[in-house]
């Protein structure tokens, strides 16, 4: 009896104290992450969450502007040789790493070498392109390319500059000779950057925290954010996001939430939703080597059968259907490329041409498990295909598993819903990694196109320095791809961000995660 009494008292007490609110003096910003962070080593970054960390902890030579062109960051200015083979960067003086030492040209050279040696993360951007990095003096560094690569500058935001001395001071024995493990182990739990924020703590599977670096070389404005906390809230827990946006426990709701969630955030008095047409596009990638999808008529049939209208009107209202593989926000987009619209008569006609009968085909569609938008897309696709007698089996998988399936042409599903990563604002970003034969075997190239003509055109576009000629090549590629119906080109993703009204300075940038640059943001109540 006494014990129950105790329990009740205890519960009551807890309730009372529980309702007291928690105050904070610093400017703390909390954001949600729809998925976990695998690594904070800048040489290994792949996912948007990891990129978000990199953007804030590290600096790069250049950084993308809202219009997709490049602005200098630690590079004061740069020069490109007329043959497109040499890029010389002049660095700002007095940039400090978090440990107080100065950032110099040698660190830039070391950073690229480290990325290339580890062969992870974004190393593929430069692996076959950069011949060497030459340090002219402490503040001048040159990149020598093997052959001209027009989008090179656009790729450089991905090269995070690490503190060479600090990394080497913390190296462990490893496979890289004098560099040991290249500081891999240490960089799992530490940062060696010069970025606006310093790593503070990381609870794997839960939360990462970074704090303001007071000596940041660009300085700080009033209302600057002192501390950033990014916490993992899985896609199934959108309800939490809404609740915490309401209470203010969350400052930013990331851009991978369900539309319903943004709709509800919009209704909150203290928060609003920002929308931006991004360079990120959604495709259903068709494995063009796997029967019956090797038949171009089948591919065209399903392209005609899909109900684009319902998708952009009902599922993601306000979105724009994609015309070919390249979103119209990217210079080089072909405004005259063929755009499929739903036309069941044409779909049936194409199916008839393919030689398959209605009811005969069963194809599978793979998408990310629990990703609500893709799931709705998949259900819509399934219903559409049923109308022309194609049976669709839905195959939700984890993202990790999808990247694994993409490794072989046999395991790659008939169709896979994939968002193209907007790694750099150039058509090459959308074309080379997806359609060039040498890029086969990744989640970006699940089409397995391997078309010699396309290969040739892409190669030419990469070395072409003249922008006009490049555009002509891009137009041709886009026309060919839409004709081949290598994908169902769905739409350019309008990215939505839920934000507390007191947060200002947010600016959309069409490169993955660069919009989450907290140095630009500030708080004004």
């Amino acid at each position: 009896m006494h014990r129950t009494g105790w329990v009740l008292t205890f519960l009551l007490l807890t309730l009372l104290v529980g309702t007291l609110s928690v105050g904070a003096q610093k400017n703390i910003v909390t954001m949600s992450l729809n998925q976990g962070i695998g690594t904070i080593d800048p040489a290994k970054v792949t996912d948007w969450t990891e990129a978000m960390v990199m953007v804030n902890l590290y600096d790069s030579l250049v950084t993308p502007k809202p219009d997709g062109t490049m602005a200098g960051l630690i590079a004061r200015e740069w020069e490109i040789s007329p043959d497109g083979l040499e890029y010389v960067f002049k660095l700002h003086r007095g940039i400090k790493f978090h440990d107080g030492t100065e950032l110099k040209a040698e660190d830039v050279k070391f950073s690229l070498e480290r990325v290339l040696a580890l062969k992870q993360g974004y190393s593929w951007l430069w692996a076959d392109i950069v011949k060497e990095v030459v340090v002219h003096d402490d503040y001048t560094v040159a990149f020598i390319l093997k052959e001209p690569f027009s989008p090179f500058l656009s790729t450089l935001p991905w090269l995070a500059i690490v503190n060479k001395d600090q990394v080497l001071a913390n190296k462990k024995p490893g496979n890289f000779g004098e560099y040991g493990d290249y500081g891999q182990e240490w960089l799992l739990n530490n940062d060696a950057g010069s970025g606006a924020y310093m790593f503070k703590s990381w609870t794997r599977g839960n939360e990462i925290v970074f704090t303001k670096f007071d000596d940041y070389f660009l300085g700080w404005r009033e209302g600057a954010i002192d501390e950033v906390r990014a916490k993992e809230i899985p896609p199934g827990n959108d309800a939490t996001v809404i609740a915490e946006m309401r209470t203010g426990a969350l400052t930013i709701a990331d851009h991978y939430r369900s539309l319903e969630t943004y709709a509800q955030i919009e209704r909150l008095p203290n928060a609003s939703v920002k929308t931006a047409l991004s360079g990120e596009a959604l495709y259903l990638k068709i494995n063009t080597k796997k029967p019956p999808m090797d038949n171009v008529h089948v591919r065209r049939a399903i392209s005609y059968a899909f109900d684009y209208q319902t998708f952009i009107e009902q599922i993601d209202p306000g979105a724009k259907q994609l015309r070919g593989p390249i979103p119209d926000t990217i210079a080089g987009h072909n405004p005259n490329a063929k755009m499929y619209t739903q036309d069941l008569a044409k779909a049936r006609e194409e199916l008839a041409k393919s030689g398959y009968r209605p009811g005969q085909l069963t194809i599978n569609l793979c998408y990310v498990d629990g990703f609500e938008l893709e799931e709705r897309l998949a259900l819509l696709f399934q219903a559409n295909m049923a109308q022309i007698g194609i049976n669709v089996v839905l195959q939700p998988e984890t993202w990790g598993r999808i990247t694994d399936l993409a490794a072989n042409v046999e395991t790659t599903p008939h169709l896979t819903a994939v968002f193209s990563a907007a790694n750099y604002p150039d058509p090459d970003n959308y074309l080379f990694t997806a359609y060039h034969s040498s890029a086969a075997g990744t989640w970006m190239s699940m089409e397995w196109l391997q078309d010699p003509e396309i290969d040739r055109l892409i190669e030419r576009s990469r070395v072409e320095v003249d922008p006009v000629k490049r555009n002509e090549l891009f137009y041709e590629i886009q026309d060919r791809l839409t004709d081949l119906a290598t994908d169902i080109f769905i739409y350019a993703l309008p990215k939505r961000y839920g934000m507390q009204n007191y947060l200002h300075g947010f600016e959309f940038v069409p490169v993955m995660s660069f919009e989450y640059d907290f140095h630009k943001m500030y708080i004004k109540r």
Partner: protein
Amino acid sequence: MKFADFRRKLAQYWYRFSQNKASIAGLIITVTIVLVTILAPYVTPYPEHAGVFVDFRNTFKPPSSANWFGTDQVGRDIFTRSIFGYRFSLIMAGTVLGIAVPLGVVLGLVSGYFGGWIESLIMRLTDIVLALPPLAMAIAVSAVLGSDLGNTMIALAMIWWTWYARLVHGMVVSLRNEEYVEAAQIMGASKLHIMFREILPNCAPAILVKTTLDAAFVIELSAGLSFLGLGVRPPEPALGTMVAEGARYLPANWWMTVFPALAILVLIFGLNWLADGLRDVLDVDL
């Protein structure tokens, strides 16, 4: 036992069973749900919503006379899908127990009756399997073998038999020295005869009660698995998946979670009440 005796005994059982209102409720709930599930295409308002179907003009409709439980994120009727969702639960329970119970009973009989190394082997095996939480094991196996209903069910059955082996083994050990078993042995009855005709009938009530209870447990587990997205492929409806999907739209679209959750609860409660009634009637202490 003569037929008349049997009937009288049955009548007695029924009388005792019917004395408890909860047992009757349990029986009615269980039978109704099984029937409704079998007849789902005829008794639901929109049977096509259980299959390949989308209607984006009617998404997120709150409960109304047209959609008693409201509609979901692609405009499907939640009432219809809940009823069809029972199929997944019941098939799961039926298959898992259909494999696990006979397997466990036979292994339990054999180990209890023969003893020796067979007994040690089987009982140690059960020890090992029982050291793992069934849900963790099921998650592991279905994650490993892929989100396939068949695999998941096999995985669960492979864990579940151990409970029955334990139960039957314990009873056999206590029964094997009973007089009537010894009498049968002296009279030269075969081992098979003794195991299945003399010992098994005495374990039957306990097995029946446990099976009923476990049916509820498997359903709970299958709901848990499908809650994590394992075991079902969309668009096939499963109650756990519906709860999980609905939870994304809480609290505004509460009906998406609340009704499927209630549907699970009704079935689980029904089975538990039924099991309680059976336990009283058959005088089983589990």
